[in-house]
């Protein structure tokens, strides 16, 4: 039997601490009672009630739209940034670039939100764009900070990669662009998917940035939830929150599952290729190559 150490105990307690509140929230969202603290039996009525709430549904659609655009743009931008950080070792301003990529991870959101809003206001005065703030400004804000997350995830993967495969392709005459799309991208695809899903989730969750840079008529789901939550716990909000929780959990699980599968496939393919080469090299009529 495994020794039950202090760190294992802390791990179990920590995970309980992280998951119990969310579990309680989900259970209580099925509570039939209007009083959120009294259990009145199981019911789906708060979920069904959500469908009639057109204002809420509108904000859900808006949030999903922004999250989709953000995921695409953040993956493109973050991958470029990660590529520069890991493959282009020397250029002017590399330290500044590295700082610009990682700083959004820790920058307090109120500062980023305020500064971006001031930028949009100044731009509107100077070049007349953006005339009104809304989806596009929220998308820009989200892309900027999600790209930082993507860059961290992708650069970790890029650093693990065996450079010799890319070098081999270049030696055989492939242009850098071709190497990038045919060799590098397929090899980092799982982390691109993970980065995309992550950006999607982060964008869907963001309250502070969206509050600063949104305009009239572009209320996102977290803003809607926040204005309701400020007044206290409500059964409808329990239902919305549980739906978001379950959607994100499902997405996380999918990312994990697919990246694991992709990794296993890749390893098997490499193994097979190696076995094949080995058996070809050791055919009897050929002189075995020196090791």
């Amino acid at each position, binding site marked *: 039997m495994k020794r039950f*150490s202090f*760190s294992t105990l*802390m*791990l179990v307690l*920590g*995970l309980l601490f*992280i*998951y119990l*509140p*969310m579990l*309680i*929230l989900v259970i*209580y969202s099925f509570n039939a009672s209007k009083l959120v*603290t009294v259990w009145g039996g199981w019911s789906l009525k708060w979920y069904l009630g959500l469908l009639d709430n057109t204002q809420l549904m509108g904000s859900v659609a808006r949030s999903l739209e922004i999250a989709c655009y953000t995921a695409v743009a953040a993956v493109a*931008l973050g991958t*470029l*940034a990660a590529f*520069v*950080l890991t493959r*282009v070792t020397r250029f002017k301003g590399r330290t500044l*670039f*590295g700082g*610009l*990529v*990682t*700083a959004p*991870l*820790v*920058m*307090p*959101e*109120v500062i980023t939100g*305020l*500064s971006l809003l*001031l*930028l949009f206001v100044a731009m509107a005065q100077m070049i007349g764009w953006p005339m009104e703030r809304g989806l596009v400004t929220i998308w820009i*804000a989200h892309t900027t900070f999600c*790209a930082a997350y993507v860059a961290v995830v992708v650069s*970790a993967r890029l*650093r*693990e990669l065996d450079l010799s495969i890319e070098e081999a392709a270049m030696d055989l005459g492939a242009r850098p*662009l071709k190497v990038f799309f045919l060799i590098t991208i397929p090899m980092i695809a799982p982390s691109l998917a993970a980065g995309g*899903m992550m950006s999607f*989730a*982060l964008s869907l*969750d963001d309250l*502070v940035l969206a*509050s600063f840079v949104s305009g009239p008529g572009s209320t996102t789901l977290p803003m809607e*939830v926040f204005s309701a*939550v*400020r007044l*206290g716990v409500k059964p409808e909000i*329990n239902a919305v*929150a549980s739906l978001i*929780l379950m959607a*994100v*959990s499902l997405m*996380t*699980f999918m990312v*994990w599952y697919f990246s694991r599968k992709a990794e296993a496939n890749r390893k098997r393919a490499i193994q097979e290729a190696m076995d094949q080469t080995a058996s070809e090299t050791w055919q009897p009529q050929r002189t075995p190559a020196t090791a």
Partner: protein
Amino acid sequence: MSTFHQALIRVLPSGRKLVIGIPFLWLFLFFMLPFFLVMKISFSEATVSIPPYSQIYGFVDQKLQVLLNLGNYSLLGADELYISAYLGSLKIALLSTLMCLLIGFPMAYGISKTRKEMQNVLLLLIMMPTWTAILIRVYAWMGILSNNGLLNAFLMGCGLISSPIEILNTNTAVYIGVVYAYLPFMVLPLYANLVKHDQSLLEAASDLGSSNFNNFWKITVPLAKNGIVAGCMLVFIPVVGEFVIPELLGGPETLMIGRVLWQEFFNNRDWPVASALAVVMLAILIIPIVLFNRSQAKEMEARA
């Protein structure tokens, strides 16, 4: 044709420049440039106009006039509200970072000691909450901590307390919320660091008669330094500017700078004071941010 091609090559930026240029330009335009604007607006005066601040420079009688209004900054120094908000934020951030480290280190250590398969599952479990809205996770605590919530019901059911204790809308609730929300950000970098440690070092030390405790302090902790710095900064810096947690779980006595900035901006519509608050907050955080960036850079080198 070939001359056209050559001309095209000369006009178009090279691939290398483009690859560096696109992310650089985006980050410069939407991340760095805005900070200079915040600095500029922090020197202007609040006016009733759109946008609600005065211009700090003008061109009058062939003279370029620059008007720097230092009033916002002297207000920050003079008004006790702002000073105590900064101190409150720093105190809450510092204490909760410490709590996260004390809880997170054993967790990360525990994960790094399990089987490889198990590590992936546990990591996923730790990572998942970071993708979920902080808003929702904080909201979950509102129901638990309230006067007639589950925690009070549980404590009374056990007979530990006779009447509900007030937790929601106090600083205690803020600490619980902050540790809850930011714990994964401490565990992840610590794990990433701890899992790389060479076990043979510990074995060698044990063979030479070192105790487990000694091993931990003299080998594991010093080796984990970069991970500890990264984890602490990932918690400390955002918590200083935290808005959602003090707003939802805190009470009137919970003064945090993110909340004050929000109120100045959205409730008082005083953009210049909000900007000045942001500038001072950034000045306080610049050293931790540089520390974080350096630990990230070191971590990247170590892995390469």
